[in-house]
Structures are given as C-alpha cells and as structure tokens.
C-alpha cells in the first residue's frame, strides 16, 4: 500500500476515533431528564424486561425450537439506574 494512502486511512481512523470520544464525553454531560428520585416506578420489579431469567430462557427455547425465526430476544437492558 502506498504511504500516502496509508496516511489518509490513518487520518480517517483518527478522526473517527476523536469523534467517538467527543460524542461519548458529551454524553456524560447530558442532564438526565428523569431524576434519580423520579425512578420509583421504573425500579418496580414489574417493570423489568426480564423478571425471571430462568423462565424467559425456557420460553425462548420453546419458541425457537418450533419457529423459523431466531435472535434479538435477549433483554438488552433497563437503563434505569435505579439501584
């Protein structure tokens, strides 16, 4: 690979990395629009996406064994920060 091409690619990678760092650092300064003391409802167990993991794992198993579709069934998170 020619040095000039390599340098260009490096510059693009560095720029992308800097952008990610900037975005993430900006994220840290965002004011939460739901304050910690306003998260009582979100902290209630009935609001959990996966209240009983042993049970939900079994039901995903039941469906996946009998249906063609698969994936994207895990609970990716609650994002509540309640605890």
């Amino acid at each position: 690979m020619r040095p000039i091409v390599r340098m260009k690619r490096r510059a693009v990678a560095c720029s992308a990395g800097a952008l990610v760092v900037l975005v993430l650092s900006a994220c840290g300064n965002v004011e939460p629009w739901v304050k910690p003391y306003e998260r009582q409802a979100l902290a209630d167990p009935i609001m959990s996406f996966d209240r009983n993991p042993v049970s939900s794992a079994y039901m995903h198993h039941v469906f996946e064994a009998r249906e063609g579709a698969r994936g994207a069934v895990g609970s990716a998170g609650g994002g509540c920060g309640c605890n």
Partner: protein
Amino acid sequence: MADTTMGALNGAYAWARVSAASLRRDRLRRSSMVALWLCAAVALSPLARGAVLPEDRADVLYHRYEGGGVTIHGPSVLVRKKMAEKYAVSANYYMDMVSSASIDVEVSGASRYEEERDQYSLGFDYLRGKTTYSLAYTNSSENDYQAETASFGISQDLFGDLTTITMGFSRGEDIVRKRDTISGRVDPGFREPIDRWSYRVGVSQVLTRTLVMNLGLEVITDEGYLNNPYRSYRYVNPGDERLFALGGEVYPRTRTSNAVALNARYFLPYRAALHGGYRFFTDTWGIGADTFEIGYTHPLGAEWIFEAAYRYYTQSRADFYSDLFERRDEQNFLARDKELSTFKSQTLRIGATYEFARSGWRFVKKGTVNLFYDRIEFDYDDFRDARYSLLPASDPRFRAAGTEPLYGFGANVFQAFVSIWF
C-alpha cells in the same frame, strides 16, 4: 436439542420403516441455537440493570411441554452470586427429557422414541464504573449431538444512566452425528461440524418516569451441516400419484439471519404494567417472520403478582421448502421441515407469583413461588397431514397425497419454579 417437537421425517423412503433410534435427531439445528441464545442470555443478563450486577439469586424450575404427540419435561437450575459488588458468577443446568411420537415420526412409520439433553452454562461478569463485561460458556450434549458456545458481552450506561448500550458476540461449534437406524449405535463415519457466529447490539432507553424502551439487533450466521440427517422430504410416488415417497433432505450449508426487536414497558397510573413488543426477522433462506406481543402485569397486595400476555407469530416459508415435491431430486435443496413452512402461531399466557419470607428467613432475603401456563396454537398453511394418504385407499378418510387436510396442533406449556434471593 432435545427439545423440539418438530419431528423428523426419518428414513430414506416412505416404505422403509425407520427405527426409533434414527429419529432422535429430530431437532438438531435448533439445539445449538438454543445453546447460543442461552449463552448470550447468561452473558448479557446483568445488562438488564445497567451498571449494577445481578442480585444473588437461585431458581429451581420444572418445565413441561405437551403438544403434537411430543412431551418434553425436565428441570432447570440457575444460581447467581456476586462478590465485592464488582464480580458475579452464574451457573445454569438445564435438562430436556423427550418422548416423541410427532406427526413426522408417525408418517415415517417409526415408533415413539425417548431421549435426553443436558446443558451446562457458566457466566462471569465484571463491573467497572458504568461498564459491565460478561463472559459465558455453554455446553449441550445429546447422544448424537454436541454443541459448545462461548459468548462475550459489554454494556455501557450513558446519559445519567437513562441509556444503556450493549454489544455481544457469540461463537458456537457443533458436532452432528448420526445413529444407526437399526442398532441405535453412533455411526463412526458420520461426523459433521457446524460453525456459528452471533453479533448483537442493543440500546435501552428510559423515555419518561413510567416508560422504558428497548431496541435490539442480532445477526446470526451458520455454516456447516444444517439439515437433520434423519429428516426426509416427500415427493409424488411415480408408481401411484395418490401416494408419496420420501427422500433425504438437502439444505444449503450456510444461513444468515437478521432480527430487529423493539420492546416497551409502561407503568400505569396505578401499580400495574403494560408491555408490548415487535420483532422483524428475515434470513437468506427466504424466511420472513413477524412477532407481536402484548401483556399486562398486575400486583395484588404485597405478595401476589398476576400476569397475562398474548403473542402472535407469522412466517413465510423457506425458498426450498415444499410439502410435496413433484419428483425425486426436483431441485438442489429440498426440505419439508414444518418449521420452514408458512404458518402462524398464537400464544396465550397466564401466570402468578407469590412472594414469601418478605422479611427474610435465615440466609434468605425473600422468595417467590411461580406458576406459568402457556397455550400455543400452531396453524400451518402449506404443511399437510400426510397420515391421511397413508391410510388404505378403501378407508373413507383416505386422501391423495397433496390433498390432505392442513396440519395444526395445540401445545400446553407449564412452568413451576421457586426463586430465592440471598
């Protein structure tokens, strides 16, 4: 994969009686997918709480599935324990005990068969600041199928913990074997591998004080021997067009699927919750699927929680699926697995949870007893009940191959489990 009801049209030809041993494979490609999923679930489970490790908890569950001539039951035990609020370990043991005489088994002429699948999972989580790193390993074994899966996950809380982003990767390696149809012994000359890769990203977002949403994307790629060595497709019998004959299925050796799911939970003005979700699915085999779910959770007093849910699933068939091919080897790939056909399923769920030892008892902080029941109805649009064309032509119920009634069945799924927090 000891769990799959879907049967297997085992045996090479319709007139060849297939022994029970040959049918044990009925479920293969899914068993490893289940291992993949469970591994991911173990790896990502702590992410559900953002930058907090899961609570110390133990669950002992008994599950039972009955439907379509198949009974599958067994235990599942899950234990999770954290240390120094930074590390957490989890372990799961799961067993399927299968007794099957599904429609596929009946059509192949075999008799009911029994088998067992054991699965072990281990997970490890490390919390550092607002980031959680997760590792998991799952091993699943049957007498003619082995699956190993390793998984890695990472989650990061952002925006004052209102947003959680997650990423995950799983790698699975399966070994498919085949048992002799007469003796039941494993054929030493048949050993086919499958490699699996799964990539996941997700974001969970608190929108208001009472509404949280979750968006997930998963891409899964398989490569290897993806069909069931015992399963058969059927084609018009050249000797008598009213009858059919069977031939061994042939699947492509690769499959890539994409799934996107959006879920939400809403806390009602009184203490109860509504949840809803939608999943869009597509794959390189031509299957497209939509899944909808809606549910309601209602606590009663301090001890009880009741819930009800409805799930609707619909899918289109794989490109190489046919209920009845015109002739033997009609095309390169041939399948008659009803899970690859066009069908819909509907599920109605009810469940109850009772909380005990609320003020603690010895080392137990609290515990729950849980009962769940799901009724699932499967209705197939292009999978016919081939048992009708196996009847003697003199039988008034006889129907020529390709004109039999469409197949459908209902299943009952029970779960009873006890959970303790310690």
